[in-house]
């Protein structure tokens, strides 16, 4: 079930990247996609009744600790890349005055010419 949902959210994010023309929506969609991957990673190998990987549990009962460690990394990555994207977004908005990808592209092409 969780795997299904993570696939759905991933494609939902991708869909938003394709159809939504606002930059901020693209960033939101990117966050959604990242979260979907994290959800998948955690739920992928999970079996019912497994305990957190802390030494109170027996080794056989523990859930796989590796995805969790990796996904903490992924969350930190997510926040820093989101912050950078947002910082760029505010620069972009200040310089171009719009956050529509199509208008941005047009202005940029005129700059080139």
């Amino acid at each position, binding site marked *: 079930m969780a795997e299904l949902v993570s696939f*759905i959210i991933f494609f939902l994010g991708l869909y938003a990247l*394709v159809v939504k023309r*606002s930059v901020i929506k693209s960033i939101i969609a990117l966050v*959604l996609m990242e*979260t979907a991957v994290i959800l998948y990673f955690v739920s992928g190998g999970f079996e019912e009744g497994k305990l957190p990987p802390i030494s109170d549990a027996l*080794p056989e009962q523990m859930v*796989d*600790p590796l995805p969790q460690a*990796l996904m*903490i990394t992924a969350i930190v990555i997510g926040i820093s890349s989101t912050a950078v994207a947002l910082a760029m977004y505010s620069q972009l908005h200040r310089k171009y005055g719009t956050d529509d990808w199509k208008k941005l592209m047009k202005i940029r092409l005129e700059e080139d010419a």
Partner: protein
Amino acid sequence: MPVTIVFLLAMVVLAVASIQVRKAEIAVIYLGIFSLFNAIFYLFYSAPDLSLAEAVIGSALATALFLVAIKGYTLRRTQIKSEYRSPKMRLALFGELFWGVVFLTIGFIVISFYFGTVQDVGKPAWYHYVRSFISDTGARNAVTAIYLNYRVFDTLFEALLLLVGILATAYFLEWPEGKEPEEEIATKPDSEIVARISGLLYPFILLYGFYIIVNGHLTPGGGFQGGAILASVFIIRYFAQRRLGINIFILQRLEKSFFLGIIALSMLLLLPEFMNSDFKVFHLVLMNILIGFKVCCGLAILFFCFIFQQTKVEDTKGRSERG
């Protein structure tokens, strides 16, 4: 578990909402709730470390950053309405519908293919980790054992990524390098109640943050989560007093020094004769503390960069309106 199903459905609904809502602020709020639901969901899947990280970083901090970053730039309601009625918009709606159908088809094929083919061939890594992490690393929390010992090489880059991300943010938002902004950020005095009560909150938050950091090798949590909690002290301080009595330059220097410290400390792992069982635990605690301080400095810088940028935007707007 029926509870998890409810959570998952709510997550899908919130994701759709955050994409489809037109006003960016509301979309961001939905995204924050989505992250919070994720965080709670991870608890059901026996991932407390991750849950803490997602709650602190993904749900709280990311939402705050989003809100501060888009504050000056979002559309007014009338603008949205007028755009909504234009013929161009109708064409765009048609495009959305078309892509929706395409995504549904391909998504359905991919998902059914996945459930038809997925298989397991055992978990060698899991087997190794859960059997030997206590004796190998001295940690009681396997997640900490992995990210501070087995795979510390990754963690170094994670710390570097945070450093670089903050560098980039500060650079793009044009923080005056090496200086404090001269004028005071806010002019209005803020609510007395907020200021007083948040003063009462500091010790709680600090205590909690340090607890999470220092006990990272025993209980869920660790440097990253605890550091984020500590950083929230700075954020609260801003809301309470609205005055930047903070020298960003020193924070940046501190962050870089902590990063160098983390690299140097992780190099000790390469000297096996040095790492006896007592020192191993000490090493874990020390690493967690350094990471916690580094993350705290970093996230505080991140937040202040956005706040500073925001006031600058408002400044220029006000000036152009007056002039």
